[in-house]
């Protein structure tokens, strides 16, 4: 059997608990962990607002628990590594962020998350009388064809969905309106990832997939689920071309559109490579007459030490631009 991958850990079974402890300390008092639950909540919540609860499996840091803060999530329910949080965590987190106007669940579309958040919804609506609604993020164009958007996963588009919905939930009093903005954002989001090498699960130290030294996988999922196709490693430009072709054709994006562009590191890719890909993506946008309103190049949605990156485009209108451009403050994503 292969040696476990090298990571700086203590007890491999306690990675989530120890990570959350470190996360809280890194936020200098802006968030707390709920006693007895792997849930993170803002300390500066106003007395009344529409609540925004995000969450999902751990191991994708800074997603989701790193995105709790001003104009971002009000709280996050944190699962074990790559596993959805259980209903009791989600229920506790929802009650902690509820400020009388209902709570929107916003998370990536995975079977485990859907089942656990739905079970929590049923408990909260029936037993607690809290107005809970759900918007699932489905930006990964590699996961299913356009006629089965409901089968698509949430990947790096999570960041823009959380940022914009977080802003809307700060400024808008109406739950209906916040939900509408969240749905519009998800409808306008498209992403695709390419994996260059695998990440590993902390508890087992095993790689989540195997790729030959000269292979890449386009469309790889955030957990190392298989992608659309494997191929030989080619140039950054050719790979960016392949990914952008799929993304642009899907919405579709076209001449005159204004977008937010995110180049997201899956974990172990260098900023140098991401900037080289960004260069090509901008050449393509220029050629297609697509205006980039704002660019984010960095590390937000990861799979441990997986190497590779994702490209996300969000089609903007004035309303989405407004909420996207509000300042954000969280460990994982801050913008002035």
């Amino acid at each position, binding site marked *: 059997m292969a040696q476990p991958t090298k990571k700086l850990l203590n007890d491999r079974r306690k990675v989530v608990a120890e990570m959350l402890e470190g996360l809280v300390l890194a936020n200098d008092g802006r968030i707390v962990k709920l006693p007895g639950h792997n849930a993170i909540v803002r300390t500066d919540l106003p007395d009344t607002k529409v609540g925004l609860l995000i969450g999902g499996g751990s191991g994708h840091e800074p997603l989701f628990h790193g995105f709790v803060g001003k104009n971002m999530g009000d709280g996050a329910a944190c699962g074990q590594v790559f596993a959805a949080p259980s209903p009791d965590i989600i229920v506790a987190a929802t009650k902690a962020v509820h400020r009388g106007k209902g709570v929107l669940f916003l998370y990536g579309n995975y079977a485990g998350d859907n089942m656990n958040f739905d079970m929590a919804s049923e408990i909260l609506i029936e037993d607690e009388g809290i107005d809970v609604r759900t918007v699932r993020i489905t930006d990964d164009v590699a*996961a299913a064809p356009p006629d089965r958007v409901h089968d698509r996963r949430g990947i790096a588009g999570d960041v823009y969905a959380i940022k914009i919905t977080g802003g809307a939930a700060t400024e808008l009093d109406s739950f209906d309106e916040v939900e509408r903005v969240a749905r519009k954002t998800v409808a306008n989001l498209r992403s695709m990832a390419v994996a260059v090498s695998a990440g590993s699960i902390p*508890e087992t130290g095993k790689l989540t997939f195997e790729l030959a030294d000269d292979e890449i996988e386009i469309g790889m999922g955030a957990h*190392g689920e298989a992608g659309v196709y494997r191929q030989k490693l080619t140039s950054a430009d050719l790979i960016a071309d392949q990914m952008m072709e799929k993304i642009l054709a899907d919405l579709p994006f076209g001449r005159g559109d204004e977008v937010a562009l995110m180049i997201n590191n899956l974990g172990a890719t260098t900023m140098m490579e991401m900037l080289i890909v960004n260069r090509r993506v901008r050449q393509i946008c220029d050629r297609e007459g697509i205006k980039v309103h704002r660019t984010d190049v960095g590390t937000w949605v990861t799979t441990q030490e997986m190497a590779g990156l994702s490209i996300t485009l969000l089609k903007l209108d004035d309303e989405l631009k407004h909420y996207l451009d509000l300042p954000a403050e969280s460990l994982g994503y801050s913008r002035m």
Partner: protein
Amino acid sequence: MAETLDAAAVVAMLDAVAQAVVDQADVLTDADLAIGDGDHGTGMKRGFEAARAALKSSPTASIEDAFKAVGMAVLSETGGAAGAIFGTFFRAGGKALSGKELLDGAGFADLLESGLAAVLKRGGVTEGQKTIIDALAPAARAARADGGSLEGASAAAAQGALHGVEATKEMIATTGKARSLGERSLGHPDPGAISVSIILVAMRDFISGN
């Protein structure tokens, strides 16, 4: 060999079931690495270790409560799709045995059928999609068709689940994290289906005294 199990024996059986899942966590991890994200083994181990602790803290539970205790522990501690599915299975299965002081062959079939119905509702899947349903559904049918003793029903269910695991090798995943593999999922059994077979084989072995 036992014709029926009382509550104390059901607690002992569920403890043996949980031990079997914990013991075979590595098998589940490797099966999941082949077509999923590789966390099934660690999640099941975490949940069923919690189930053993829950059973230990309430040794005089009723049959219903014993199943529900396992379900709650697995739901909370396993997390993910597996936690929701196996937690739902044990909780709903236990509910079907409400008020029963003895578990017999008919009760065993009730347990599987009710657990199956709840999992189908929660997961929104059908047979043939390469999921735990493909082990659980044939197991439930086999237990009901056997129509006899607890030993016969549990043996039929275990056999049905094992056949179901084999059958999942020939299926293409159309749901869950293996979905994107498409035809590449062929030849690999579904990890969740393997978990069902481990659970039902452990029940059979306990009941038959092996």
